[in-house]
């Protein structure tokens, strides 16, 4: 699974690093705001609900500021990843997001069959027979192990209802 493009272009590591530090800092600010809403002072039963997370939020903001500063000062001209590599990563994230988003409506089994099938056929270029065998086999095995032997219910959709499972 090598990347097709030979170009060494991609987002700079520094840039991504800075963005991540800023995002973490933003998370810290949200935590601080939420804590202020819950109350950070002392109430009748001692420190109120926001007391502890408030200081956590401050720690997050301060340490992110230091990380941002260190990251920008660092002499690192490297790439975060090449575009081709990121495309590979996205080719996993996007279908997984669709899979996960479809699960509440289709149930786990149907979504899994399509997801495994798609993955093997488009990324792995396997013959249909292998694709069908694995894509159908895995959910069937899952059904027996989880629902039958260990009695763990998994999400089901209209197809399972129609099959009466």
């Amino acid at each position: 699974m090598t990347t097709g493009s030979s170009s060494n272009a991609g987002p700079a590591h520094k840039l991504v690093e800075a963005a991540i530090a800023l995002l973490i800092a933003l998370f810290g600010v949200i935590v601080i705001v939420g804590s202020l809403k819950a109350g950070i002072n002392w109430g009748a039963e001692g420190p109120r609900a926001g007391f502890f997370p408030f200081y956590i939020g401050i720690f997050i903001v301060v340490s992110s500021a230091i990380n941002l500063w260190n990251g920008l000062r660092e002499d690192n001209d490297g790439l975060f990843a090449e575009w081709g590599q990121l495309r590979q990563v996205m080719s996993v994230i996007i279908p997984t997001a669709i899979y996960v988003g479809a699960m509440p409506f289709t149930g786990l089994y149907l979504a899994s069959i399509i997801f495994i099938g798609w993955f093997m056929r488009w990324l792995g270029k396997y013959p249909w027979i292998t694709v069908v065998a694995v894509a159908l086999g895995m959910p069937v095995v899952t059904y027996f192990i989880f629902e039958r032997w260990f009695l763990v219910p998994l999400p089901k959709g209209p197809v399972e209802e129609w099959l009466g499972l």
Partner: protein
Amino acid sequence: MEELVNLFHGFAVALQPFNVMVMLVGIVLGVIIGVLPGLGGANGVAILLPLTFSMPPTSAIIMLSCIYWGALFGGAITSILFNIPGEPWSVATTFDGYPMAQKGKAGEALTAAFTSSFVGALFAVAMITLVAPLVASFALQFGPAEKFAVYFLAFCSFVGLSKEPPFKTIAAMMVGFALAAVGLDSITGQLRLTFGFTELLNGFDFLIAVIGLFGIGEILLTMEEGLAFRGGTAKINLRVVLQTWKELPAYWVTSLRSCVIGCWMGITPAGATPASFMSYGIAKRVAKNGSNFGKGEIEGVVAPETAAHAAGTSALLPMLSLGVPGSPTAAVLLGGLLIWGLQPGPMLFVEQKEFVWGLIASMYLGNIVGLLVVLTCVPIFAAILRVPFSIIAPLILVLCAIGAYSVHSSTFDVMLMLVFGVIGYLLKKCNYPLAPLVLAIVLGDKAEEAFRQSLLGSQGSLGIFFSNTLVSTIMILGLIALFWSVIQQGYTRLRGASA
């Protein structure tokens, strides 16, 4: 003496036919998990945790801990045969293991690795047997301030001992604490940080975080690197095994040193990965043929494997006796205890004798079973790695989704898992450590509770954390751990100045 009697009772529990079966299943699953990319000890145990909901707690913990031992063994297989560390703690094993395999000595390297793992684990279990009850009975006297001090020490060790930049460790850890705080406040019963989202009422479950951060994140990293497996074949037979066993006693000093390093690093939550590197580094510096390290020296396999397994095993000591897990996998096991209705910590040794000693006995047996399984089945496990990643990846993703769903039977959790996965990928790429984040989610509520209760007792004065010898000692140890790298730098500078 009482411990010995308890241990024998434990063996009686662990040797029940059902538990032996569960042990075997756990080891085999564990090795597979250790071999597969994207599935490690922590998320492997997290995914399989729901399967144990219907089991008795003792059998459940035996199965899950055996998965952990299996994963520890499994990591070595891929490191030696394919130069791909299946687990972070087996990175150091690749340094000499893979060159040995290239020289056609894969069998020797694997035997050395498995045997050293076994020795390390046995040493750690013996230590747990002797020390854990003492620690637990000592910890029974802890008040909230002492409890908080122990958490403080645990988290400070992360900052001081991890190889990531300290402020990144702190940032990751604090994000974990913040995530733990979301939802119902356990003391006042008030809602906080939910911003009106009903899905967040119960906060973030660390199991979802573990499956996302470690499982999905790892798959994304593997996709980016575009893995192609190329490697030696595993030939291991009795003659090679016996011959290697004859050689190994010569390295007893390395072995003993690695055991001690491993146990120490495992108890302080630095974990197996730094332990294996440290042990390798020291062995390289001390050994007579240290300059040959990296070219296929058997001692270079013995040192990291012994330490990694000793650390991985001894990580359960603070989990059982104090309720502070020493590694992400131990944290997942601790989460399991809570789900089965057991309270980890010193009271466990008083109230749940059968459970604790059954588990400890199963550690002895599990590692023996593990050694036999990996020695006999290496070729089968190695074959798993030849299954192309484009088949393995979707199957692992589906397994992760099933694991995430079955924690609370919620599809929202599955989406959350994917979000954690992307976050894990980005954080890992930017050198943020994930273990402290996960541990903070697990321990956040308890640490906060201890902190607030201490302050209640002292009317808000931080002086309570230095109010008696015990709590001050733990706090000062924590501060030393926190500033460890600074202290070390200062020491080297001083030595440099005087030399």
